[in-house]
């Protein structure tokens, strides 16, 4: 069994619908333009309840990652890697990475958004490395030598 998306609020449903359509969208406040994630009832900047669902660019940068060496959830046998990515639009998104333990995974590395269909048919956002496109700050700070 794979871990299906869980709906923690009314606002998670459009998010997962956009993922299912392979066009991940987040709420953007119609009053101040702030994009927010997780989805919710009001803009955390201006409190406006009005928002549109806007597709994201799919570009981002790895903030961090962890490798699970124990299996915690069905469908994710160890070792299993999970990344946190800051999208070009600003919000942070957790994701799997494809392949699951890629060479060259580093903090600051650029990634692009893709979609992965699980065994139960649900679609999951996943990221792939853009190895040729390391974030310039990561290069400047010498973050390449950091490893497990």
């Amino acid at each position, binding site marked *: 069994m794979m*871990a*299906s*998306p*869980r709906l*923690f609020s009314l606002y998670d449903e459009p998010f997962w619908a956009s993922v299912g359509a392979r066009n991940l969208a987040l709420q953007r406040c119609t009053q101040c333009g702030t994009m927010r*994630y*997780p989805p919710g009832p009001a803009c*955390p900047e201006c409190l406006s309840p009005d928002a549109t669902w806007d597709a994201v660019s799919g570009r981002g940068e790895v*903030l*961090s*990652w*962890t*490798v*699970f*060496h*124990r299996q*915690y*959830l*069905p*469908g*994710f046998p160890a*070792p*299993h890697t*999970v990344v*946190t990515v800051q999208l070009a639009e600003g*919000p*942070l*998104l*957790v*994701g*799997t990475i494809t392949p699951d333990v890629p060479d060259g995974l*580093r*903090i*600051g590395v650029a990634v692009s958004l893709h979609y992965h269909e699980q065994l139960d048919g*649900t679609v*999951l956002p996943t990221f792939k490395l853009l190895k040729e496109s390391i974030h310039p700050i990561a290069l400047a*700070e*010498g*973050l390449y030598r*950091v490893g*497990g």
Partner: protein
Amino acid sequence: MHKAAAVVGIGQTDWVGDYRRVRAGEKPDDSYGYAAAAFRAALDDAGIGKDEVDGLIVGPTTAYERMGEVLGINPRWGGQADSVQAVVQAIMAVRCGMAEVVALVYGNNQRSAAVQYGGPQAMGGDDFLAYVYHAPWGLTSQGALYALMWRRYMALQSATERDLAQVAVGQRQWACLNERAIMRKPLTMEDYLASAYVAEPLHLFDYCLINDGGVALIVAEASRAKAIAARGGHRPVWIHGVGRADMNRGATSMEPRLLDFYRPAQKLAADQLYAMAGVGPKDVDALLIYDSFSCHVPFALEGFGYCGTGDAGSFIAGTGIGPGGGLPVNTGGGHLSESYMQGWNHQIEAVRQIRGAEGARQVPDCRFVHYASDVAGKAVTVMYGV
């Protein structure tokens, strides 16, 4: 709230004995039973009867009403809180005149009841959505969130696994001197580095224990505290100050965790605390840090102003946080080696160190013990003192 209240009694269950019994398949007690045992011990320690208690705060693992029923207490004020919030709320209640003698009781059967902190049944999601929200990607558990945070810290600050290993090794040294500690087998740097990863880069020894037990404290208004002490109890351990600051914005997607390392909250809480207490890091004789994971320690050393950002590893190596070190940290062994009482064991350890009778692990001339807690960006802190 400076010295508005003092701790006049402490109690705990037999963590070591119950750990053995649970490992052997027994269920020694439930959460209420552990809490009741700790409460009895705290009353005995204070030298008072339960009829003197007019306030009750219970830990998050037990219901307020049922605990009052079990203990036979009809308080005029009460509530439910985690360990450090319980202390803060008790002082506020006393300062406002809502209560004079407040019992803080905690019991947790998390080991015998097989409470899960990760996986499909991960607890805590009602209060901290990040603990469960990313389950569709296979990410649950607080350990994984701290693994993400420590990985990024290592990269940005050029820190190493050896830097972090010093925490588990140092706290185990304290535990070896503490007969109430569960994990007392000596631990070396090599043992740590050879141990398995759980959520990499965190090793097994970076994780807290999971064990059953209970803790209780009796907090009394200043004049009542003096009167109780005069009747033959221990000398009061005063609460010199408190501080709190929370970072909730962006919490589920981990913005304050990964972009700020919760530093702004820790700084605000520390500034409040040091101003109220009139003492700061240079005056502190022992520092107790909420340590569900070892990396809480370097984050707190930096966030609460003991060393500069990125300097925790070299600070620990140069100053020493174990027995004989320049800054004793988690002198009972903490959550990693003594007992995982979710911050409650740190409160009674602070009281014990100020009382000054802890034998081999007693911090010499211990006048001020600082408790620094940061659970998912909720920074709360207390200064205990003579």
